[in-house]
């Protein structure tokens, strides 16, 4: 059984004041196995962000089911779904969305704020994750004291703090230069190599090529694409991974 099962999901947005709905996703079905690194590509307006927010348990689909680890996510109440997000999901946003008034370690501890853990345990976990992304020595820096790449790594560290089974990334390299983008991709690939399940939306074919599998969305429908992209193995062979 797949770790993530997207079952016939459709989403229609209703324009305010209009009875006519705008369909964004049409009968989308997909599966993601545990430890898989899956990329979602597609042109603007194809429904990528909508599918990502549905996978992120934040956007109720009009039809269909999302099952993660056997849990029918949208059958949960709003508050239980918040708990689900805290327990199962890690988000990496396109513009990182770090809290500018918290330092690096506090940003990483943010997803732990609502969890019933001792302060020392929260700090230990945060330091461990910062170590993973190579920012342990900069734990006390404020976000504006970090470079773009470091901010991206910090955003990934925050997504990992609650040890989520699934990491969702929304074009994490979209606004970055090539070097910084590569830095972020390296961290994600390292995580993938350690068995982390990752679902990433991207416009960048080179980044998509590094995933285990690419899903292609056009006009709200998934198109069949080749499963494994050669570039990944090439990337790994070249020693960058």
């Amino acid at each position, binding site marked *: 059984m797949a770790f993530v099962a997207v079952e016939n999901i459709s989403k229609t947005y209703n324009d305010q004041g209009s009875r006519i709905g705008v369909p964004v996703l049409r009968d989308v079905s997909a599966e993601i196995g545990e430890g898989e690194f899956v990329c979602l590509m597609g042109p603007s307006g194809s429904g990528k*962000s909508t599918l990502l*927010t549905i996978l*992120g348990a*934040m*956007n109720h689909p009009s039809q269909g089911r999302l099952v993660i680890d056997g849990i029918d996510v949208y059958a949960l109440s*709003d*508050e239980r779904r*918040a*708990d*689900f*997000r*805290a*327990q199962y*999901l*890690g*988000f990496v*946003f396109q*513009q990182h*969305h770090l*809290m*500018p*008034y*918290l330092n690096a370690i*506090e940003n990483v*501890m*943010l*997803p*732990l*704020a*609502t969890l019933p853990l001792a*302060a020392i345990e*929260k700090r230990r976990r*945060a330091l461990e994750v910062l170590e993973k992304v190579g920012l342990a020595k900069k734990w006390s820096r404020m976000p504006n004291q970090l470079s773009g790449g470091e901010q991206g790594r910090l955003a990934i560290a*925050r997504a990992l703090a*609650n040890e989520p089974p699934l990491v969702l990334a929304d074009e994490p390299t979209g606004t970055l230069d090539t070097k910084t983008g590569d830095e972020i991709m390296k961290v994600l690939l390292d995580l993938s190599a350690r068995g982390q399940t990752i679902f990433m939306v991207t416009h960048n074919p080179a980044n998509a090529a590094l995933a285990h599998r690419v899903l292609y969305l056009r006009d709200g429908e998934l198109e069949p694409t080749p499963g494994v992209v050669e570039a990944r193995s090439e990337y790994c062979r070249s020693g960058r991974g």
Partner: protein
Amino acid sequence: MRISTIAFANLRRRKGKAFFLVSGIGIGIGTAVALLSLSGSLREEIGSQMDRFGANIVVTPHSDSLALDYGGVSVAGVSFDQHQLSNDDAAGVRRIPYRKRLSVVAPKLLGTVDVDGRRTLVAGVDFASELRLKKWWRLVGRAPESATDVLLGYDVARAVSAIEPFPGTSADADKSSAHHSAAPEEFRITKERVTIGSREHRIAGVIGQTGGPEDRMVFAQLSQVQDLLGRPGQLSVIEVSALCKDCPVEDIVTQIRKELPHANVSAIQQSVRARAEAVDRLSRFSLVVSAVVLAIGALMVFTTMMSAVVERTKEIGVLRAIGFRRTHIIKGLMIEVVIISAAGGIVGWLAGLLASRLALPYFTEAGAQIELRVSLAVLAIAIAMLTGIVSSVYPVIRASRLDPSEAVRYV
């Protein structure tokens, strides 16, 4: 890292906005505190001024006669079954359950005697009580000390040539005017002793002209007058001054009536009612102004919180996305509101106290003071917090209901 850590960090980050909110609530609370403190002090002062007007309860012997007077002109009446008051009755007044609310009990015996050969109304009084009761008396000389010391009313003093005006004063120019009002410093005592009945008494002082019956009276020690009139232990009237701050005058009257069933006990309602009305008006005015200022403060908190929610849509969306419940968002924002409101309450209380202290001299006579009441501080902080919380409920709930997918997409 707790939700409160985020709230504190947010406050540190938005110092300007926090300062603005604290100031807004502080101004509202400060105005309310200043007005309430001022009206409280004015209430005290009005109360003490009313008390200074003299007795507000009069105990007289029970009589079946009707008073025969009109426009200040008295005609002798006939009394039936008159019960005399005695020293024991004065002691009885001091025994009532509300005795702690009695500031002065002043027994008197009235009669007529010859003073240097002139028939004069004499009052036997307990000088310690009488001088506390008649605070408006302006004495030239000193307060009586020994049993034979007396105080002369202004007209009596003039009649027995015990005083003379200072040269060049208006009193000197218009000695004959019966309605002349002489300030005490306009005359001096020229005589040491006066004969009352057959005994010589020392003139301790002369009461400056009051325009009242005192001007035509002599005041001596109660026991002396009781001896002089041959009425040992008897009294004509007992004047009582109840401490009038929230005093239950009617209850005191009832208790005295119970203690002295043979006496007439009446409250001077007019002064009590006038005082109560003045105090009530002041209190109502203060409450209305305070409510208006607080409402403006609440509106300010509301608009600031609404704009803060819009400004923080992204942040709230991120927090919701990473697993914060609605209640966690509410808790975080409410911690900020409570801290700001409590700070506003403390600042407002201090500012209000300071403002009322500065303003007090312009509203009251010298000597009035602003009380440092802990209850007012607690009330100020509680109302500040209530104002902050109530006016933030809608913005905070709205923030918690932000759709995280919309909020994240918003950026």
